[in-house]
Each structure stands twice: as structure tokens, then as C-alpha cells.
């Protein structure tokens, strides 16, 4: 919303306050200023001039002799409306005008072979209003009169951020801001429009005096419309005609479009008082009888904007006996709009339920200035201001206009008087050090329109009508009123007197930090991916989306669901980055979401995992690598080095919280997800706790090399526990025993290890090391040999050679009874 300084000055004296300080006062005391600008030409030197004669030079240009109050000047002019005897605007040489290229100085120059001493200008050239419609007509002024007197010169425009007025229905007008500025500046209001609010007489007094004609106007309001108040009056002898120039300029300054006087005035009154109002062409209404009612389902209304609106029962309309004539509180109807031949009008101002207005305006997507104001919850005492002001200004311009009816007033919801009990010491405590004295607070609240009943420190404040709709309802609202008027810059800082307590970092966060540090140290790069996923894509990787959280209003169909795993993002991130680098090491710590109750999506238990959550969210760590195929290990050339490279990292991560051994279990090819290499996929466990999965990415044409991805559950890792404990280092010697086991090629090492660990004397085993893998002669096709070293011994004594021999033979017989052969 834009504010004009000239307009504000109608209501409050701003003398002595620079434009900069005015903007500063508004922003630090009242509402957020979005921007400031100047409007209109400086007008210095521009005067009213009388055209004495007009002589054509050619088909376009004419030479005029004008009298500027002191001398006659010769001026060349192209305007078709220039005529002898006309009073117009003259800018002498050296003055400023606005052109399409910006401000320009008027030069003495030859035009069409004639010397021109200055120019005659249009309103547009002075940035006053309107389009290029010829030079300005200034009837009723004396030649030589200064234009800056007539039009107040350069105006200063403040644009307010509408969001900062969400809670202030009283600030949606020039009078509203002026009232506020008067309170902040402690200056009196020059013209207090609140006198029209007539709150004591409940609206009856002044309005009764206003209208007294014989014309009949009936207004009936249905209760279920939640209309708070509806005022109407009939006015005859009006002319749509041209709007006075001063009013056109103001409307232009704040960026408002213009139509005809009756409509412009309606608009002006809203911007002036804050009260939306509407004029119907009385001749186009079926009869001077209006019904405020719920719309019928399927009923249609063509709005002033030319759009047909299809209505429902939840919408409210103003209708005459033939049907809707306006969408209540939002938009007038086209059929009853004022037009060039209008002679009589029905002026209406009302107060509507903000929620109803908001719903209809949102549903039909019509955000008019009226709707914007009503949905902020206006006071039912406001509409009289619109009626009074409209009549007042109309009569000023068109004295012939007459009111031909009583003011019909349907006042359905009279608000209770609102009082707040508080104390000066409470306000002072909330503000802190530097709070104003009680007497000062009293003055501030009174200047803001509150009526105070003081008893010592305590007081009861009665809230004025314009602040009583929602805005001021608590003692804390008064803290804000006093604080902002006093100026928060006057409040000084102070440390609170509170107990000093150590703060904690959740275990989860500590683990996250450790994982990140570890991974960064190991050369991994962290990325953040979006929480949304394309359900189709996710499905194509093998994730069921049956329990996924689905978006009602996604930005895009490829962001239609919340991700159920970090893998889909990881695959994309690998693919995108592989265009630039052949070797990648990436990780993300993030969340996946699901509607399903399953242990993997644990119900949050503590604050950060509080119950009563909407979806189930789990924290995951996804690590991925891409590398060229092949590589050597301690075992020589071995397939899947990339896989084990990542698994080694997982092992380090698991060791952050667990002292149990990390182990993997193959995922059977038929259970592998679509993205997984069916023969290189495993579940990862620490002890019996499932930590996550790891798998090589099934070959893709867009990725060269081998990609391996794993996804770990941070909450599982957190559940496992690690406690450092000391065991004395064994004083007794250990022995080694190396065996080579021959087994079918696809025998898992974990199976062999289990056989060894389950042998009768296995309590002596202190470690098992894989030494080598071998396939080929003299082994048979489809066989392999696995050589391991067993480290064994006792912590209590030195083993006897007989015990050693026994151990070795137990191991060998276990291997054989396990169905495997020994390679001798």
C-alpha cells in the first residue's frame, strides 16, 4: 500500500519532518516500509497562463501568445486542445518537465521556425496524473498563480509492506496512518474522521442528520451471511463526469487507476478512510431494495472486471429482486455499475465477516482492495466514515447532489466495549531497562486513543473502536504499543538473572558430527538433496511407494512424494557429477519419510523424536562411491574391490558407536532391489542389529566404472552401545594354525568362519585371518580354496603341545564334518 505525504498532511501537520525521518518514523514505530519515492514534477516556476492567441504554423504545430501573469510569451505548442481564452500550465525556460526518457529541462529553442519561450504542458508532463490528453485545463485559476500552490509540488510516497499490516485493519488508509503518526509525534489531528464513527450513539446520531429525503430504501440482511453492518443511502442529481484535478493527482500518486468521478470518489474515500464502499447506479437496480443473502449454488455474477463468477452457498451476495448485484465485500457487479448516463446512485458501505470474505476471495481468486481490507477484520464502526466522507466530498464538487433517503443502517453485530486491566509495572517489566515512566506510558496510550482509568500502578484501558477487533486484546499488546511509541532504541540490553545450566547436544547430533568428520577425513564430499522424489523414478529403482508420504500440492509432478530412501538422490547425484569426474566419494545425512508404522521408521520417543508426529521420519546416512573398475588388495586381484572399499568405511562408522563386529549377509538375487547388482548386495549388521544395506549399482549406461552405495540407519547405530573396557593383555603365548579349505565357489566366507567358530575347542580361538583365495588347477572347476590362519591360545596358561594338537585336529574334523575338504 502506498501513502502520499500530501494526503497524510490533510490530517496531521508534518511540518519540520524531513521525508527521510518520516519514513524512519513509520518503519521504526509503525510498519515496515518497502520503499520510498517521489512523485510529480517539482513545479518550480510553473504557473497558470492565459492563452491570448493561437496561430497555426503547420498541420501539427501552432504558435501561441500566452500571458503568464507578468508578461506575454511566445510559445510553440502541438496540443490540439490549445485555444484562445484557455487557462493552462506554462513552464518557463529553465523549468523541469517529465518526458518518456525522464526529467528534462525546458530550453529556449526554435520549434517549426518559431522561437519558443518555454512550453505549455500536459498533466503527464508534470507527472500529476493521467494520459497525454492535451495541455492541462486550469479553469478557475488566475494567470500567474503558482502550480506548486495548486498541486502542492513534489509529493513523497511511502510504500508499506502489506504483510506488516496483517494485524492492523485500522492502518489501511491515509487517515489510519495519520492517526498513528499524530500519536507517535504527539501532534493533534487536524481533521479527526473518527467523529463520524459515532460510537456512543451506536451509529444513529450523525447518520440520521445526514439523510432525510423521502426516498424509500430498504435493506434486509440475512443472519447467516454474518454481515456485521450494512449502510446505504440514495443520492440524486449526480454527474459521473470528470474528477477534480487535485483528486486525480492523489490517485495517480499512489498508483490507483481512474474511471469517472463517482467511482474515483468511492475509491478515494476508501484510501482516505480505510472503509471500502460501493456505488450502484440506482437506475439500473430493479428497485431501491437490497438483500444481503447467501448465494444460491450455481448463481452467476459478472463482476466489474468483466469476469463471470460462479457462486456457491458459502459466498455472500448483495442482490436486488432480480439477482446478485455485487459479491459482498469483494467486487461490484457489472450490470449495476455507474456509467456515463448515471444520475442517481445508491451508496453502500458495510462490514463483513473476515473469514467469509477471505474464503470467497481466495476461492474465486479475486484479491480486490476491498477484500484485502475486510479480511483483516474491520470494525463495524468504520462504514459510517465512508458514507460521511463520500457525501462531504461529493457535495464539495457537485453542490447539486442531494440525498434523497434516510441512511438505512442494518447494524447486526454491535461489538462489546473492550477493556484491558494491567499495570504500568507489568509493561515496564516486559520492556526491561530503559522503559518509560508510568506517566509517559499513560500519555502514549491515551494518544493512541485508549481511555485510561488509573488507580495507582494499576489501570483499566478501554480500547478504541478501530483497535478493538483483534489487534489489542491483551496486556502484552499494550507492551507493544508503549514500546514502539517509546522507541525500542531506548531499551538497553541486560543479561537475565537466571540459573546457569550446562546445555546438552543430543546424542544423535553428536553422532552426526562424528560421522561427518570421519567421512570428510576419508575424502568424502557432503551434499544435501531435496526431500522430494519423483514417485515413478523411485519405483524404477525398486522402492515401493505404497506407504510414501504423497504431496497434495507438489511444485511439480516429479516432486510428488517425500523420499523413502536417500538412494534415489544418491544415484542421481553420482550420475550428474560423473560427467565431470570419474572418481567420486559422496555422502548425505538426511531423512526419509513414510506413513508406515514399522520399526525401521521408529516412532520418535524424546523431544527430538517426539510422539504425535505426522509421518514417520528416519535419519539415514547414505555413502556412495564411483571408481574405475579393478584394483588390488592384500589378497591380490580380487573382484569387488570397490564394494569392499566402501564397506571398510562403513566399518569405521560402525565402530564409532559399537564394539560388536560388523558383518554382512548376502541379499538373495530375487530380493535385491532393482537398483542393486543382484550378486553384489548385502545387509549390514553390527551384532544382531541391522544397520543398513550396501550394494553395487547395477550397470547403467550413464555411469562408467563401478558405483557402490550404502544406506545406514543412524538411529540403529545410536541404539548399539560401546563401552570401553580394559582386559589385561594375555601373558601367555598364542599359536597359529593355517588351513586351506576347499569348497564350492559360491560358498560364503561367513559360512566357513561359522564352521570354525563352532568347532569344539573354539573358546581358544583368538582370531581368524583370511590368507588367500585360490581357484584353478589342481582344484576342480567350480571349486575354490580358502586359506585361513587361526590364532589361538589361552589367557590363563601356556597350552601344552598335546592341547595344541587336539585343537588342530578338532578344527580339521569340524571342517570335514561341515562338508568341506582340506587341502593338504
Amino acid at each position, binding site marked *: 500500500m502506498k501513502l502520499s505525504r500530501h494526503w497524510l498532511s490533510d490530517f496531521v501537520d508534518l511540518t519540520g519532518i524531513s521525508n527521510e525521518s518520516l519514513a524512519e518514523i513509520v518503519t521504526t514505530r509503525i510498519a515496515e516500509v518497502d520503499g520510498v519515492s517521489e512523485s510529480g514534477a517539482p513545479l518550480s516556476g510553473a504557473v497558470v497562463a492565459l492563452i491570448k492567441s493561437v496561430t497555426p504554423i503547420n498541420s501539427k504545430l501552432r504558435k501561441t501568445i500566452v500571458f503568464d501573469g507578468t508578461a506575454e510569451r511566445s510559445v510553440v505548442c502541438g496540443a490540439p486542445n490549445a485555444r484562445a481564452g484557455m487557462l493552462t500550465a506554462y513552464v518557463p525556460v529553465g523549468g523541469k518537465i517529465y518526458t518518456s526518457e525522464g526529467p528534462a529541462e525546458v530550453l529556449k529553442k526554435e520549434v517549426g521556425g518559431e522561437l519558443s519561450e518555454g512550453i505549455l504542458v500536459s498533466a503527464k508532463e508534470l507527472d500529476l496524473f493521467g494520459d497525454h490528453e492535451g495541455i492541462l485545463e486550469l479553469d478557475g485559476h488566475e494567470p500567474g498563480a503558482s502550480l506548486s500552490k495548486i498541486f502542492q509540488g513534489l509529493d513523497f510516497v511511502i510504500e508499506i509492506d502489506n504483510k506488516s499490516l496483517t494485524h492492523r485493519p485500522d492502518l489501511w488508509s491515509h487517515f489510519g496512518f495519520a492517526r498513528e503518526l499524530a500519536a507517535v509525534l504527539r501532534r493533534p489531528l487536524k481533521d479527526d474522521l473518527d467523529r463520524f464513527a459515532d460510537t456512543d450513539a451506536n451509529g444513529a446520531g450523525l447518520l440520521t442528520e445526514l439523510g432525510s429525503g423521502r426516498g424509500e430504501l430498504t435493506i434486509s440482511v440475512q443472519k447467516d451471511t454474518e454481515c456485521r453492518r450494512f449502510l446505504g443511502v440514495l443520492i440524486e442529481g449526480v454527474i459521473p463526469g470528470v474528477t477534480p484535478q487535485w483528486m486525480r493527482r492523489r490517485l495517480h500518486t499512489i498508483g490507483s487507476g481512474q474511471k469517472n468521478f463517482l467511482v474515483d470518489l468511492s475509491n478515494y474515500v476508501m484510501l482516505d478512510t480505510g472503509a471500502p464502499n460501493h456505488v450502484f447506479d440506482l437506475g439500473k437496480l430493479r428497485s431501491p431494495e437490497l438483500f444481503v443473502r447467501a448465494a444460491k449454488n450455481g448463481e452467476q455474477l459478472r463482476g466489474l472486471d468483466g469476469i463471470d463468477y460462479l457462486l456457491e452457498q458459502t459466498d455472500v451476495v448483495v442482490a436486488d429482486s432480480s439477482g446478485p448485484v455485487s459479491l459482498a465485500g469483494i467486487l461490484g457487479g457489472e450490470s449495476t455499475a455507474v456509467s456515463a448516463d448515471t444520475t442517481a446512485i445508491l451508496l453502500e458501505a458495510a462490514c463483513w465477516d473476515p473469514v467469509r470474505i477471505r474464503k470467497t476471495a481466495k476461492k474465486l481468486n479475486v484479491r480486490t482492495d476491498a477484500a484485502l481490507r475486510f479480511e483483516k477484520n474491520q470494525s463495524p464502526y468504520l462504514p459510517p466514515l465512508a458514507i460521511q466522507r463520500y457525501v462531504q466530498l461529493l457535495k464539495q464538487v457537485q453542490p447539486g447532489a442531494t440525498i434523497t433517503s434516510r441512511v438505512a443502517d442494518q447494524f447486526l453485530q454491535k461489538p462489546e466495549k473492550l477493556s484491558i486491566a494491567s499495570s504500568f509495572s507489568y509493561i515496564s517489566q516486559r520492556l526491561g531497562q530503559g522503559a518509560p515512566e508510568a506517566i509517559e506510558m499513560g500519555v502514549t496510550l491515551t494518544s493512541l486513543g485508549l481511555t485510561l482509568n488509573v488507580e495507582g500502578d494499576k489501570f483499566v484501558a478501554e480500547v478504541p473502536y478501530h483497535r478493538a477487533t483483534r489487534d489489542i486484546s491483551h496486556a502484552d499488546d499494550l507492551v507493544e504499543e508503549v514500546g*514502539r511509541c517509546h522507541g525500542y532504541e531506548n531499551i538497553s540490553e541486560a543479561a537475565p538473572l537466571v540459573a546457569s545450566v550446562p546445555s546438552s547436544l543430543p546424542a544423535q547430533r553428536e553422532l552426526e558430527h562424528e560421522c561427518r568428520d570421519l567421512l570428510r577425513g576419508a575424502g568424502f564430499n557432503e551434499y544435501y538433496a531435496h526431500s522430494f522424489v519423483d514417485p515413478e523414478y523411485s519405483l524404477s529403482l525398486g522402492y515401493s511407494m505404497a506407504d510414501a508420504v504423497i504431496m497434495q500440492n507438489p511444485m511439480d509432478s516429479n516432486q510428488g512424494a517425500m523420499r523413502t530412501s536417500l538412494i534415489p538422490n544418491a544415484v542421481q547425484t553420482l550420475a550428474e557429477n560423473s560427467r565431470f569426474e570419474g572418481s567420486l566419494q559422496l555422502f548425505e545425512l538426511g531423512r526419509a519419510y513414510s506413513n508406515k508404522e514399522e520399526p525401521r521408521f521408529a516412532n520418535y520417543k524424546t523431544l527430538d523424536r517426539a510422539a504425535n508426529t505426522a509421518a514417520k521420519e528416519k535419519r539415514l546416512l547414505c555413502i556412495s562411491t564411483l571408481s574405475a573398475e579393478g584394483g588390488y588388495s592384500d589378497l591380490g586381484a580380487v573382484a569387488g574391490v570397490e564394494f569392499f572399499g566402501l564397506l571398510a568405511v562403513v566399518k569405521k562408522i560402525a565402530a564409532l558407536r559399537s564394539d560388536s563386529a560388523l558383518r554382512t549377509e548376502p541379499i538373495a538375487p530375487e530380493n535385491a532391489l532393482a537398483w542393486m547388482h543382484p550378486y553384489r548386495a548385502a545387509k549390514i549388521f553390527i551384532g544382531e542389529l541391522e544397520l543398513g544395506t550396501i550394494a553395487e549399482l547395477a550397470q547403467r549406461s550413464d555411469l562408467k566404472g563401478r558405483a557402490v552405495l550404502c544406506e545406514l540407519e543412524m538411529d540403529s547405530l545410536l541404539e548399539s552401545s560401546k563401552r570401553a573396557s580394559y582386559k589385561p593383555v594375555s601373558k601367555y603365548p598364542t599359536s597359529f594354525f593355517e588351513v586351506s579349505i576347499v569348497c564350492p565357489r559360491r560358498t560364503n566366507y561367513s559360512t566357513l568362519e561359522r564352521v570354525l567358530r563352532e568347532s569344539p575347542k573354539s573358546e581358544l580361538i583368538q582370531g581368524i585371518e583370511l590368507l588367500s583365495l585360490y581357484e584353478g588347477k589342481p582344484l576342480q572347476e567350480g571349486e575354490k580354496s580358502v586359506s585361513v590362519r587361526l590364532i589361538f591360545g589361552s589367557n590363563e596358561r601356556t597350552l601344552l603341545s598335546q592341547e595344541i594338537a587336539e585343537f588342530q585336529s578338532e578344527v580339521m574334523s569340524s571342517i570335514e564334518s561341515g562338508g568341506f575338504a582340506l587341502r593338504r
Partner: protein
Amino acid sequence: VELSQITENEGRCLSVLEGATSSAELEKLRVQFLGKQGELTQLLKSVASVPAEQRKEFGKLANEMKGRVEAFLEQKKTVLELKERSARLESEWIDVTLPVSAVSKNDAPGSLHPLTSVQRELEQIFRGLGFTVVDGPEVEKERYNFDALNIPATHPARDMQDTFWTTQGDVLRTHTSAMQVRALERMKPPLRIVAPGRCFRSERVDSSHDHTFYQMEGMMVDRNISISNLLYFMRTLLREILGFEPKIRLRPGYFPFVEPGFELDIWFKGRWLELLPCGLVHPKVFELTGHDPKEWQGFAFGLGLSRLVMSRYEIDDVRHLQGGDLRFLKQFP
């Protein structure tokens, strides 16, 4: 055997030793002269054949001579070994400017996302001020995101935020302020919390807007909390983040869950910049979470983490933050 033989032998020996060019050659010479069968050793042994009256002197001179030769040898050895060592080292020259990745596979330094680093830094600052770090869900019940924050369904403030809704009727939290409610519900005042995290608003994505962004909510609840206290914490916080004493101001700002509500501006490069919204916790929020606003007061604030990261590193496009482009990410080691 003559006495003069001693001097002759010494002269010859020293000049031969002087000519040695390697420690190996020197060792050979040592054996030649001083070994068991060495020439000088033999000379010393020949003392027996010296006449008795000269024997004492001969013995003394011969021993002195041997001492000098040995000392010379030792010195020569040190010099030669030093020379040889430096020659060997020189032969082991490597080109230290070779690209590491060409020679060693494990050269990658790794990187942390800038949001991670900034969030961690802030968490540390707040922990120093006695604030506990808490986390909460990103898919939220309406109650936490709106209702209990004094934003009922009909409130125009709901228009201020473009909300993502799930088909279950839940919201993706539009601000971390939802955590104020969770904290007040689950923790006993007095309390001090910060809640960093991911938020969502359905905004058109461009270089300065993303539908996903990070905030950090802060709240302190205690007895007799005032605007002075809020200012104290905000200034302390900003001083820590910025590393200099900031010039700040409060001006009115509207948020339904605080009263009074403020925008905190900071003076930066000659003008006021809007930095963070804050205010005293609205009594309604206390009531809606089962606390007596007469007993408890508090302040709350919201830090835009994404915005902070953008300005700290002068990042020109917010889409980088969740773009996953390594060429961006690797700039934050």
C-alpha cells in the same frame, strides 16, 4: 730400525690417506696401515728390535704417531661419509610438485556442506549461552506448525506462507517455529532451546528462492523475561557470528506467536538490513501448550540459516545448496 722411520712412515701414511676418495677405500687403507698386519702396527711391534736406550723414546714417538694417524683417519672418514650421504640423498630426488592424485589414490580431502559448518558453529555458540539443541519432525501436524502458534485456520497469517500439504492433511513445516510448541509441550520451563532444521514453502524456485531452506529457531523461557534480555542475547549471538560489535535495531514486526513482535535489523554497509524476526513469546502460545503466562515469559527468534550461508560465502544462487554439484561442494573443505 731408525727413529727417522717413524716420521717417514707418518708422512707416507697421511698422504695416502689424504688421497682416499670413498669411505670404502679409506677402510681398506685403515686395514693396510692399522690392521693386525698393518704397516704401522708392524712398525710399532718392531720396538723390540730397537736398542734399549732408544726403546723408550721410540715407543713414545711411535705411539704418538699412531694416535695422529688414527685421528686423521677418523676425521677423513667423517668427511667422506658426509659427502657420500649427501650424494645418495641427492640421487633420491623426487618431483614434489607432481599432482598428488596421479601418484596416490587416496588424496581426496573431502568436504562438509556449508550449511553443516554454519549450523554447527551456531549450535556451539548457543550451547555456550546455555541453549540446548533439539530436533523435530519435518512433516508436521497442523497444530504444531499453525494452531498452537496462535495461527488458527482462518488467520490471514496463513496466507503469508505458501504451505505444502500431504494427502494425509499434514504440512511440511513452513518454519522451525513449530519446535517452540514441541519444546513447550515436552520440556519443563525454564528452558533454552535452539532448533535448526529443514523447512519448506511452495515458492517458485529461482536464484534467491528455493522451496526447501534451513532455519534455526531459538527460544528462552524463564521468569521475568524482558525485551532487554532479548536484546542482550541477540547482540551476544551476532557478535559471536560476525566477529565484530554489531549495530542493531528492533522495529515492529508482526508474527502471531510473539507479542510484541520485532524485526531485528543490522547496520551493514551504510544501510539497515533486515536480519531476523524475534519477539516475546505470545501468552496465547503458553496457554495453548498448558503453561501459565503469568508465571512464564520468554523470547523467541528465527535465524535464516540458508540466508546466512549465502551471505557468508557470497553464494549467488540458492539452488547450489541442494544441487549436489561437486564443483560447488568441494569449495568448502
